[in-house]
């Protein structure tokens, strides 16, 4: 379909594909029509009327975010009538909005605030009405402040259309309209997977991440504690955006320096345990494939996905790999192996992780995540919280020199780094499985067929005679499709499935920086593949620190007794 349409916007002629909206056409000629309820990740809803424009010949103003262009349309995006209508909409929103910007988590990163600023609103001509909804702090990961909700419905649409969890709804009418889980319940009382995507798409401070920085600072300031921090793969291609860098900037070295300056005693890398996860998971996969037990096997490193499985498909849980996530493997080793090697008292270690993920805040508190004898990971900070922490330390992030991770658990390969994007765990596992099974060196490391952003991707991989069928799903809507196929008897005969709860994978997790770049996912993914290419080692089994751990601590084998004690978890449904 290549029909084009020519129209006039603010006296400029523009030609676009048929089906494009006025908003899209305007962007093409550098006119940014403001929006609130519209977002590139969800279907238009046309609820807020911030995007109104004047269409010549039409009586009412049109919502540019959903109005499809037609030939010869004449549009004005900034006439006095339009400007007044927009101002009215925003003033009404502000009249019902708490004036909390100073203390709001979204201060300076809020679309409502930015809109008020860009429309030049200097006074609000309506009386302030006091909002009165209680905060919802029941979730371990998120805080909802309905008073800051502008009823844009983005969270409603994302959670139902993309994640198929349908947690939120519009409720009530008129003055008491609100967006809420059913029966006004708290997020922890409904089937919320804690993926945190709603906190990314919310334009305001109505859904934010639970802030754990104060507890981490307290540990850092306690001279008795040794604070060990790990950084997830995706954080290195996200954090930079908070400091004005383009999406896809790789800032690993500056991040390590910043963490050291803030006062973390040891700065280590989750990529190390990503590699270890591959060794454990590939071993488990080959065993299960041979024994044809609980097949197909599904990856288990995305805690939002684990929550989804437990809430929506509890009968299929035996398909999960028993491997803990890299974060939790790291935590279990930090207070055992690492403590031993470094001569530290595990009781004095405070284990912190920097994660792109909001569900990790819940994962670290699961009762089964105490295999070191302590809570394996004490605190999780999201990439956004780290950004805030760095700012509060007055560090000029972009001017920081680069540093290396500390040894013992600080080395990661390219296979570990691509754990952060959809398809990456599968590719890392295949690099290792291939070489283990065939005892030959892989001719080409890049498994191009499983890369990309297709919602559900498949490939058949030939391990020299052993053919395996793999599938990759990202976003819980796609995960649901996979689960429904398994319920229907796995007609496509998959052997190994990778699932990540967030669309795009961890690079666009619920704790990552909020981007307004429509291509931010692919840019961050490309950055992880670049990081992979630039690393000296690119296969998990080549990681010398993982090899040392295996030899010195795991009894010389993966999937052995020690591994099962520390690195695997008896998920419900697995007999042990």
């Amino acid at each position, binding site marked *: 379909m290549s029909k084009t349409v020519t129209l006039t916007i603010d006296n400029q002629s523009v030609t676009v594909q048929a089906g494009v909206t006025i908003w899209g056409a305007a962007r093409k000629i550098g006119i940014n029509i403001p929006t609130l309820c519209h977002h590139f990740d969800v279907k238009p809803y046309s609820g807020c009327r911030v995007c109104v424009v004047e269409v010549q010949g039409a009586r009412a103003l049109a919502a540019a975010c959903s109005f499809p262009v037609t030939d010869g349309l004449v549009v004005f995006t900034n006439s006095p009538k339009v400007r007044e209508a927009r101002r009215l909409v925003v003033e009404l929103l502000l009249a019902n909005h708490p004036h909390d910007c100073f203390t709001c988590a979204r201060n300076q990163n809020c679309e409502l605030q930015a809109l008020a600023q860009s429309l030049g609103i200097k006074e609000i001509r309506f009386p302030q009405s006091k909002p009165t909804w209680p905060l919802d702090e029941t979730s371990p990961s998120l805080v909802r402040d309905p008073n800051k909700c502008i009823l844009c419905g983005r969270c409603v649409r994302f959670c*139902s259309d993309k994640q198929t969890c*349908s*947690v*939120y*709804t*519009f*409720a*009530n*009418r008129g003055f008491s309209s609100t967006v809420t*889980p*059913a*029966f006004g319940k708290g997020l922890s009382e*409904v089937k919320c997977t804690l993926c945190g995507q709603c906190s990314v798409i919310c334009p305001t401070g109505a859904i934010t991440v639970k802030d754990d920085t104060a507890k981490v600072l307290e540990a850092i300031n306690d001279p008795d504690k040794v604070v060990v921090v790990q950084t997830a793969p995706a954080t290195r291609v996200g954090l930079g955006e908070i400091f004005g860098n383009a999406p896809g900037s790789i800032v690993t070295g500056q991040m390590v320096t910043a963490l050291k300056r803030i006062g973390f005693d040891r700065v280590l890398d989750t990529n190390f345990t990503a590699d270890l996860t591959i060794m454990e998971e590939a071993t488990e996969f080959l065993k299960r494939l041979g024994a044809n037990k609980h097949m197909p096997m599904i990856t288990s490193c995305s805690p939002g996905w684990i929550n989804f499985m437990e809430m929506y498909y509890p009968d299929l849980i035996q398909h999960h790999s028993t491997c803990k996530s890299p974060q939790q493997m790291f935590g279990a080793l930090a207070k055992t192996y690492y403590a031993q090697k470094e001569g530290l008292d595990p009781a004095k270690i405070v284990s912190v992780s920097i994660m792109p993920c909001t569900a990790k805040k819940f994962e670290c508190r699961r009762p089964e995540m105490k295999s070191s004898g302590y809570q394996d990971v004490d605190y999780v900070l999201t990439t956004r919280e780290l950004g805030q922490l760095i700012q509060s330390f007055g560090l000029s992030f972009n001017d920081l020199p680069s540093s290396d991770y500390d040894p013992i658990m600080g080395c990661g390969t390219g296979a570990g780094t691509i754990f952060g994007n959809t398809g990456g765990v599968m590719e890392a596992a295949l690099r290792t499985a291939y070489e283990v099974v065939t005892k030959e060196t892989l001719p080409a490391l890049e498994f191009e067929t499983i890369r990309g952003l297709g919602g559900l991707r498949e490939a058949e991989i030939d391990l020299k005679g052993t053919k395996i069928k793999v599938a990759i799903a990202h976003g819980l809507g796609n995960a649901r499709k996979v689960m429904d196929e398994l319920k229907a008897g796995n007609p496509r005969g998959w052997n190994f499935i990778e699932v990540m709860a967030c669309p795009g994978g961890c690079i666009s997790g619920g704790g990552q920086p909020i981007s307004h770049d429509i291509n931010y996912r692919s840019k961050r993914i490309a950055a992880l593949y670049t990081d992979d290419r630039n690393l000296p080692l690119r296969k998990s089994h080549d990681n010398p620190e993982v090899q040392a751990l295996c030899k010195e601590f795991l009894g010389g084998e993966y999937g052995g007794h020690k591994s099962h004690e520390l690195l695997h978890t008896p998920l419900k449904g697995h007999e042990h």
Partner: protein
Amino acid sequence: MGSVSPSPAQEFDLTKLNPIYDAYKHVVNGALIPVLQAAQEAYGYLPEPVLEAIGEHLNVPISQIYGVVTFYAQFHLEPRGKHIIRTCQGTACHVRNASRILESLKNTLGVSPGGTTSDLQFTLETVACIGACSLAPVMMVDHDTHGRLKPDLVPKILDNYRN
């Protein structure tokens, strides 16, 4: 008397829903509202377990059902009293001390507006002008209008409805 909130442990006979499902099984889209109406008829209101069951049966997310139920004034999430009291808070009534009538109702019944007494006799609601301003302050009990009210008349009027 205190206000009732349906206890979650309360059991509901969900088989009462089966004939309702049957009646609407040919409606491909849009069965939700008629099913909700019929369910409310059957249970007197729409308790959470009933809504959960309907959601499961029609494959509609519970959040969406909650949205519908709270949007339409005809649906009730709480049990309703046998008698519905609507006390006017409109301008004419307001200047004639409607707020004291409301106080008296609250004290007599032990519930706030929107609430239902635990013996399920009365539900208290407020309205803005019922078109009987000349009788202000006014309240309605079911279809009866009671005008020129005084706070101390309220308990007596209500007694006439008890049985």
